[in-house]
């Protein structure tokens, strides 16, 4: 789950971190009150979107008067922002952050994330703030420093000092920087972050540090205890993905034309890979999980079938906890109510495989059975390539 910049900054501000003062608005009518609260008539209007590259895409604009602030806010609200990270479809802007303009002298980079291999939280620092950090890491790796704080205690003074030195911060600035690290470390843990990125962390004209922009990502597994952050767990999800999650299904829409229903994330990925190996493309990732009900299986099938790009469906189940006959009944039930518009290839293996195959046989439906994963993927790919699936009804 991601937070918007204004939500993330509220958390940073509450922790006592130096963040530019700002007010979020969702409608043009709120602009005047927002500016009054801030006590300013000039500043920056920032479109709120879960994406980088907003400035270049026209999502961040300076205003000098209240009238300009209103006009800009109205222009930004409702616009579709297309950045290099959003793809051509862009994102719709529903909120604008009105913020005081910053007098930027230097731009630095600080991020907190998890180093999986070391099983340790890691700080990533760079004096090249404001840039795409992946580019910096690739072209000038010497401008990146990783610091590993010890678990279960405050950040060691020597570690913070090492970071400050790397960024060229001295005296009061170094002290302020140590405080920033400590607070970010605490927020990262308390809010179950997977990424907390400050880019840029600026040194302003007065020599003080200020956290100008923030990416704030929260662990999907911890969303249940982070509701008060204001994050929207359904943001950035396709409506069919939200529908699927209600039934405990893990579904991700993709661009291909073979719909997939599989149990287990690993097998679901391997099924997609095998389809690609045979020259076709999967229309989705779908893991029905190990304990889905017959109803959830039916729902999964409906979601896959409702994708207009789907020209063939491959069901690939290796029953462990999930008995094959339950999957079979769910699929047959779905086909009977919604009809079968495209060819359906079914591969069943594992727990209750005999019973599952019987359910399919007795259904009288025209299903194509596959011997194994390879056979199933090959058959589905052939159906799509020969056009057998196209317009079949």
């Amino acid at each position: 789950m991601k937070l918007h910049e204004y939500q993330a900054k509220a958390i940073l501000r509450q922790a006592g971190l130096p963040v530019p003062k700002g007010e979020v608005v969702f409608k043009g009518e709120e602009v005047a009150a927002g500016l009054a609260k801030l006590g300013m008539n000039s500043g920056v209007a920032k479109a709120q979107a879960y994406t980088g590259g907003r400035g270049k895409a026209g999502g961040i604009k300076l205003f000098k008067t209240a009238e300009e602030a209103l006009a800009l806010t109205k222009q930004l609200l409702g616009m579709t922002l297309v950045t290099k990270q959003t793809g051509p479809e862009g994102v719709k802007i529903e909120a604008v952050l009105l913020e005081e303009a910053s007098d930027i002298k230097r731009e630095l980079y600080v991020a907190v994330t998890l180093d999986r291999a070391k099983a340790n939280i890691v700080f990533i620092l760079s004096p090249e703030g404001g840039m795409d950090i992946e580019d910096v890491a690739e072209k000038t790796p010497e401008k990146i420093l990783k610091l590993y704080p010890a678990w279960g205690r405050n950040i060691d003074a020597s570690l913070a000092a090492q970071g400050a030195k790397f960024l060229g911060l001295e005296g009061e600035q170094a002290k302020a920087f140590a405080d920033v690290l400590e607070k970010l470390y605490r927020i990262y843990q308390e809010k179950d972050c997977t990424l907390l990125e400050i880019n840029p962390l600026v040194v302003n004209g007065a020599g003080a540090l200020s956290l100008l922009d923030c990416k704030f990502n929260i662990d999907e597994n911890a969303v249940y205890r982070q509701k008060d952050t204001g994050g929207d767990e359904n943001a950035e999800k396709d409506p069919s993905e939200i529908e699927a999650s209600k039934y405990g299904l893990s579904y991700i829409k993709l661009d291909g034309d073979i719909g997939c229903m599989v149990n287990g994330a690993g097998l679901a990925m391997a099924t997609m890979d095998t389809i690609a190996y045979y020259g076709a493309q999967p229309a989705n990732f779908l893991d029905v999980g190990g304990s889905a009900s017959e109803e959830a299986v039916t729902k999964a099938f409906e979601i896959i079938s409702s994708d207009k790009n789907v020209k063939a469906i491959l069901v690939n189940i290796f029953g462990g906890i999930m008995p094959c006959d339950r999957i079979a009944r769910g699929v047959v039930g779905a086909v009977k109510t919604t009809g079968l518009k495209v060819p359906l290839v079914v591969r069943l293996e594992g727990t209750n495989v005999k019973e599952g195959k019987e359910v399919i046989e007795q259904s009288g439906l025209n299903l194509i059975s596959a011997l194994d994963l390879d056979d199933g993927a090959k058959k589905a790919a052939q159906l799509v390539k020969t056009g057998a699936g196209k317009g079949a009804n």
Partner: protein
Amino acid sequence: MAILIGKETRLITQGITGKAGLFHSQKCREYGTNVVGGVTPKKGGTTVDGFPVFNSVAESVKATGANASMIFVPAPFAADAILEAADAGVHLIVAITEGIPVMDMLKVHNYLKSKNCILIGPNCPGVTTAGVCKIGIAPGPIHSKGRIGIVSRSGTLTYEAVHQTTVAGLGQTTAVGIGGDPIHGLSHIDVVKMLNADPETEGIILIGEIGGSDEEIAAAWIKDNVKKPVVGFIAGASAPKGKRMGHAGAIIDGTSGTAEAKIKALKDAGVTVAATAAEIGAKMVQAMKAAGK
């Protein structure tokens, strides 16, 4: 011999009175595992389908001599369940629970450093020593006692590898599902080391997926240390960047964790890499023949 579990294993189930906990305790017992009881707070002193229930892991260890635990406790409480098992002196902890927050697992990871125990999982199918003992949710009947050791992040791909080696007549020594979460107990390299040292294991199958660098780390060790034939498979070559593919760990961030990089590392280590999950068994047969086994 095999690894990790066998006849001497005495298993308790944390969360035994839940639906999944009881069902799989029964399945493990059917397979031959010595399931000596279970733990559910406030239900101590009762029994469920013949399994004695205890209030705490410590009590159950004292009463039954349990040396292994299987955890089905719901995600918000699962990390504490792991800590409790470690404190009670349980040697092998298998956490089946899916969806434990990463921060909870970091806490567990750091706590276990000072404990003498082995954690498998979380979010894993468990471990099976073919024909002898099963801890977890893998379907028992697909296993057959044999010569191949298996380590995998994915549950259903473990089943694929087990099934294919059974059909191919190779059979398994021990199959270990290490789980798909970013912070976990045993890693590929740990299990590869055990399988390499196990005299009964003649060949090794390593199954990975996108995200993290577990597979690369294991590959580097295999290159320098393993003489037994190894077959590898990596799932997720066709997965789009930045999307979490079901497993919390299966996500490509930036340029790390791609299937391409992992496959290259395995090939560099002399591992035979299967092009699709369907040919893992066939590749193992070939690799065994080539090694004169």
